[in-house]
């Protein structure tokens, strides 16, 4: 409401009519703003819920693949398709490691126009790197490897929890998620200055994925960390994880930009990610970490874990058992060992200890089915391992050994400890705050917890802290306080969901430990949009994505509608439509309110003709008429998962997979989804895509061919959450010199 303003004599000349007009306009405008606000909120909700369900899907997929690993016979073909992503780095000698990543024989050609690095790295070179990337240069793989090796050396000696202080009135600058958006990092450096002795920085995780310049951001952050080891700090985020990277674009980005050495770079990064510190404490009072806490988070425990054992936070570290093959970081060598046996395994097919589905019933059930079986298998495994160990022991030692208890008990103690540690790390990287008191599993994302204000209060008291700064969630203003201002969420990737969707922010913290926020928004894409325009645009983008989702759930939706349509007239009331849609989609959106945007086919009496509606939503692909309808639907619904599996299967990262592997991939998917997909249907698909009939399928072409373009928004370039990767990557030109 306005403050009192002294009116000049002029005002008394305003007619009553003008005043009434002003009042009317004010009323109208406030109404308009409120409507926009509501639209903004549900747009946001659409993007966020789809984003989180994508993360959940990735975890589901990973669990599923893990299940397959545990159940397939070691010799099976299918296991080979996916086993390499589980072959995480064992601890090994430095010499071996450095040999594998030797960059010395990589030559930098004359025509290379990017930056050259000479070690030891200097400030000028770090700054030069920023400039080079600003000018769209790419760093040569030789220098990348050198830089990464140096980074790894530095990270190894850091503790799990950095402890820093704002002494001598130095302010520390804290940044949240960047997600490969180089523009935002450049904007921050522009506004705030680059890292230096007087300008310490702390980056709070999620440097990679989704944006198109993830590797450049990493290289910049690493070089500054090398040059200013006491003034640049990095915390690990949940996206510093090779399993997550498979789906969200970082893996693809590296392999596209570095065709020849990308695989090695990724392998080295796996190691580096696992060595990133988990959290930072400033002046013993402010805790900075990526996700959050749970009611069991204990900084003491966290400071003692061997963090590098958690290459991916999604899987607990393997229990060490005595095995006959030598563990090796050289996956190429392992592949040779497998390869030799491949000839004898061609006949192997999917075998399960028990059939997963009965022949008649193909409907989606929850993943609970897996977990029952998993427990059984794991127990058997452990017994098997103990037996083997027993016999090895007995044959190697003269001392008589009792069967069972001593070894069993150490085993169980170790595994409990491991689980406890794993949970601590998972919570730290994946949790989100909620407004309710208490603590519960974060089922929307699939990992970590939701924690409440009481948990924050308790945690801060226990550890004698006063503030938690975390990231992990996109916020419209770039930051948001919660839990009585004891928790601050900080997000530094502006325009994250779409142009104009949100600002980014960074925090400055001085010795008084009062956070001071600075906001910004990268605007190179378009000129400054008005409130109206930016909401409208983001909304259109979100609705496009939502329509894709709705179309992809067509069969389930029709089933749900039929339940309300007893006379089978093809019509449902508006209320029933909304209820049915929510029961299938589980997105918690105000469907009734959005009906006008989603259903445009006119109905006179407030009913919806749902068959017409699907025609309206219909997606037109290239020549898809001969392809089975339900297969097509599966494809749209699980596009991202399918693409992820392709990338896993494409072991040499060529971007091509053979027909045989393509077939195997679909079989994997069919098991995962518990759907029957005939060989014939798969062949039809393959034929559609392999236009030159040379026996191999271009993954990108395949995914591109089935990219959704509905009639309404073919011209829209909104970022589809399904893609998970920046569409511009397909336009990147291959530079053979790099």
């Amino acid at each position, binding site marked *: 409401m306005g403050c009192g303003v002294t009116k000049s004599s002029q005002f008394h000349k305003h007619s009553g009519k003008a005043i009434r007009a002003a009042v*009317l306009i004010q009323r109208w405008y406030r109404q308009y703003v409120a409507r926009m606000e509501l639209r903004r909120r549900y747009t946001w909700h659409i993007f966020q819920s789809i984003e989180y369900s994508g993360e959940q899907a990735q975890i589901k997929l990973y669990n599923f693949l893990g299940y397959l690993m545990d159940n397939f016979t070691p010799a099976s073909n299918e296991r080979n398709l996916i086993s390499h992503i589980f072959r995480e780095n064992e601890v090994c000698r430095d010499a071996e490691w450095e040999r594998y990543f030797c960059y010395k024989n990589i030559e930098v050609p004359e025509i290379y126009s990017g930056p050259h690095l000479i070690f030891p790295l200097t400030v000028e070179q770090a700054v030069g790197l920023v400039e080079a990337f600003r000018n769209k240069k790419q760093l040569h793989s030789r220098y990348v490897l050198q830089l990464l090796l140096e980074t790894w050396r530095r990270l190894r000696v850091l503790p799990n929890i950095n402890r820093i202080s704002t002494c001598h009135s130095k302010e520390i600058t804290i940044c949240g998620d960047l997600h490969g958006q180089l523009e935002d990092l450049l904007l921050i450096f522009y506004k705030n200055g680059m890292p230096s002795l007087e300008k310490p920085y702390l980056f709070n995780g999620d440097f990679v994925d989704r944006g198109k310049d993830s590797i450049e951001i990493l290289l910049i952050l690493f070089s500054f960390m090398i040059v200013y080891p006491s003034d640049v700090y990095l915390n690990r985020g949940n996206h510093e994880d090779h399993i997550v990277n498979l789906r969200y674009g970082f893996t693809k980005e590296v392999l596209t930009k570095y065709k020849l050495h990308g695989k090695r770079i990724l392998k080295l990064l796996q190691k580096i990610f696992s060595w990133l510190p988990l959290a930072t404490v400033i002046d013993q009072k402010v805790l900075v970490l990526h996700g959050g806490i749970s009611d069991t988070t204990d900084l003491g425990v966290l400071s003692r874990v061997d963090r590098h054992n958690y290459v991916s936070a999604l899987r607990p570290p393997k229990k060490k058992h005595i095995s006959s093959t030598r563990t090796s970081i050289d996956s190429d060598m392992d592949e040779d060992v497998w390869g030799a046996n491949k000839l004898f395994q061609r006949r192997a097919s999917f075998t399960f200890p028990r059939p997963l589905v009965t022949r008649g019933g193909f409907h989606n059930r929850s993943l609970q089915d897996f977990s029952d079986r998993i427990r059984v298998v794991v127990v058997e495994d452990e017994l098997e391992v103990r037996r083997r160990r027993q016999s090895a022991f007995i044959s190697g030692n003269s001392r008589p050994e009792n069967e069972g208890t001593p070894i069993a008990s150490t085993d169980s103690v170790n595994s409990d400890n491991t689980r406890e540690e794993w949970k601590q790390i998972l919570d730290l990287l994946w949790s989100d705050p909620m407004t309710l008191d208490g603590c519960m599993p974060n089922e929307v994302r699939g990992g970590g917890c939701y924690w409440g204000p009481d948990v924050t209060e308790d945690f801060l008291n226990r550890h004698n802290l006063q503030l938690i700064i975390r990231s992990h969630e996109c916020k419209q203003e770039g930051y948001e306080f919660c839990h009585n201002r004891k928790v601050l969420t900080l997000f530094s990737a502006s325009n994250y969901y779409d142009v104009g969707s949100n600002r980014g922010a960074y925090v400055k913290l001085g010795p008084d430990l009062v956070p001071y926020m600075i906001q910004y928004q990268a605007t190179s894409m378009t000129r400054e949009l008005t409130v109206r325009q930016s909401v409208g645009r983001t909304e259109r983008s979100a609705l496009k994505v939502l329509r894709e989702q709705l179309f992809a759930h067509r069969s389930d939706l029709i089933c749900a509608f039929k339940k309300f349509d007893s006379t089978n007239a093809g019509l449902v009331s508006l209320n029933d439509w909304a209820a049915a849609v929510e029961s299938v989609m589980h997105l918690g959106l105000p469907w009734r309110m959005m009906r006008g945007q989603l259903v445009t086919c006119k109905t006179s009496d407030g009913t919806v003709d749902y068959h017409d509606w699907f025609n309206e939503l219909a997606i037109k692909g290239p020549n898809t008429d001969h392809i089975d309808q339900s297969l097509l639907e599966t494809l749209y619904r699980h596009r991202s998962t399918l693409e992820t599996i392709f990338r896993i299967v494409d072991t040499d990262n060529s971007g091509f997979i053979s027909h045989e592997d393509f077939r195997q991939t679909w079989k994997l998917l069919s098991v995962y989804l518990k759907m029957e997909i005939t060989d014939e249907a798969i062949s039809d698909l393959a034929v559609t895509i392999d236009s030159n009939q040379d026996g191999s399928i271009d993954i990108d072409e395949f995914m591109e061919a089935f990219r959704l373009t509905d009639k309404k928004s073919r011209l829209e370039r909104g970022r589809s959450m399904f893609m998970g990767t920046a569409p511009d990557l397909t336009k990147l030109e291959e530079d053979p010199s790099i």
Partner: protein
Amino acid sequence: MCTRRSERLSTRSTTRPTAPWTSGELVRRQAAQEIGTIIYSLGCFPSQKDLHDFIAKVEEDHTGYIHLDKFLPAMTKVLQEHKFPPISEDLLLQAFEALDKEKKDYLDPEELTKYMTQEGEPFTQEEMEEMLTALADHRNQIHYKDVVSQMTIKPDK
């Protein structure tokens, strides 16, 4: 409590736990702003005074809390009685014309600002800035005829 025994991570699609919107639960809101948003989005056009009167009726003793049991019947009544009817395009146009003293078919930002911030139920500086960003074109003029036709709601379909 949050203890995970299984090795696998749980997956179930639910939305984030929030205070459930059920009868009998207190919904913590910043009364003026949030209730206003709700009422506006239901197609009503109350003035600020109307809003404050409404909130005073449904609020729990100036605590800033609004009980759903009170809100629902009051809101239903407002809708049934068409208490805060929408402003028609014609009326809005007339209002703008009344402010356009020189009859030039557009308003300068200064003109509009003067009225919006000093008459009736004045805008805050923030509201004013936002309005100018939304309504002014590249010539920094508010061509109200265009604005009005783009921004009025059509009667509900």
